[in-house]
């Protein structure tokens, strides 16, 4: 049933693409697709940017498949089947990539939680640090009454 649904969906998509092929947007579509795909030879370049021979060949494949009326999803699948998720700049969300997708947000949440905890503790801190009258009397007895002009590091 599911397959049938997709088949139907692709059929519609193919027909739409077949019409699109006659208009100049085809080039732009190839470009958009190839910007989402990684060149495996020079891995920090997209297929659109790379001049590696493999990238040229893969762009040729994109062109052919677009001309054959394949949908973007089908073309992406074609490449993932051969080169794995690595070929996509935006990897799909699944168990092995969960950390990749959630990790930054989890770190942000942890950092925010830590910040809130520290701020709360700091707001409570002055009350604890303040000296009571009992403490002040104790300090005065140990250090003697404060003398003006007396240096704190004086020898006397």
């Amino acid at each position, binding site marked *: 049933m599911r397959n049938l649904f997709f088949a139907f969906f692709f059929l519609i998509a193919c027909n739409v693409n077949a019409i699109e092929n006659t208009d100049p947007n085809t080039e732009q579509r190839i470009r958009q697709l190839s910007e989402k795909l990684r060149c*495996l*030879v020079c*891995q920090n370049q997209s297929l659109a940017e790379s001049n590696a*021979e*493999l990238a040229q*060949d*893969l762009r040729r*494949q994109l062109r052919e498949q677009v001309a054959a009326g394949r949908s973007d999803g089908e073309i992406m699948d074609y490449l*993932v*089947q*051969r*080169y*794995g*998720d*690595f070929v996509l700049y935006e990897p799909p969300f699944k168990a092995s990539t969960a950390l990749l997708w959630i990790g930054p947000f989890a770190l942000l949440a942890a950092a925010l939680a830590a910040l809130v905890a520290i701020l709360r503790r700091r707001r409570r801190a002055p009350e604890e640090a303040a000296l009571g009258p009992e403490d002040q009397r104790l300090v005065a007895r140990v250090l003697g009454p404060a003398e003006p002009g007396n240096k704190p590091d004086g020898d006397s």
Partner: protein
Amino acid sequence: MKRFLWPLGIFILLVGFLAAGLTLDPREVPSPLIGKAAPAFDLPVLQQPGERFDAAARRLAPSARRFAPSDMRGKVWLLNVWASWCVSCRDEHPVLVELSKKNLLPILGLNYKDKDEDAQRWLTQFGNPYQVSIVDADGRTGIDYGVYGVPETYVIDAEGVIRYKQIGPLTEAILEQKVLPLAMALKK
């Protein structure tokens, strides 16, 4: 004290991650084809003077001198993607020639985006370890196999399933430690 332990702990964790990262090779992209059927193709075989080649070629593709992976059903074999323009293939080639002398398993070449004359000259000059070399002139079959850095080598089992992929040149060590043990296990 605790206040200093926290950053230290985070630092050590970070160093751990970075150290692990250094041991990984980002150029080795795990192939999604492992455990899947080797993609089918039907391609011409490289013409090459020499008895060994002719005999093998005639046996494998008697009439048309074409080759399809189904011709190797029932055998565990190596598919080695090579080209005369590929620099590291030159390092790898003697290893393959040595392996072919041992007659342990058939080695087939996929001559990737090469000129026939250049490929023939290469085989005459450096020796021919291949039962046949299959001509993939426009690189389409290479794309079907997910080739992105020649040389690459596939171990394909008797049912035609890809069991292992070596990206980059085969070495004696890789052969002894990975490829041959796997191939021998698959043969049984």
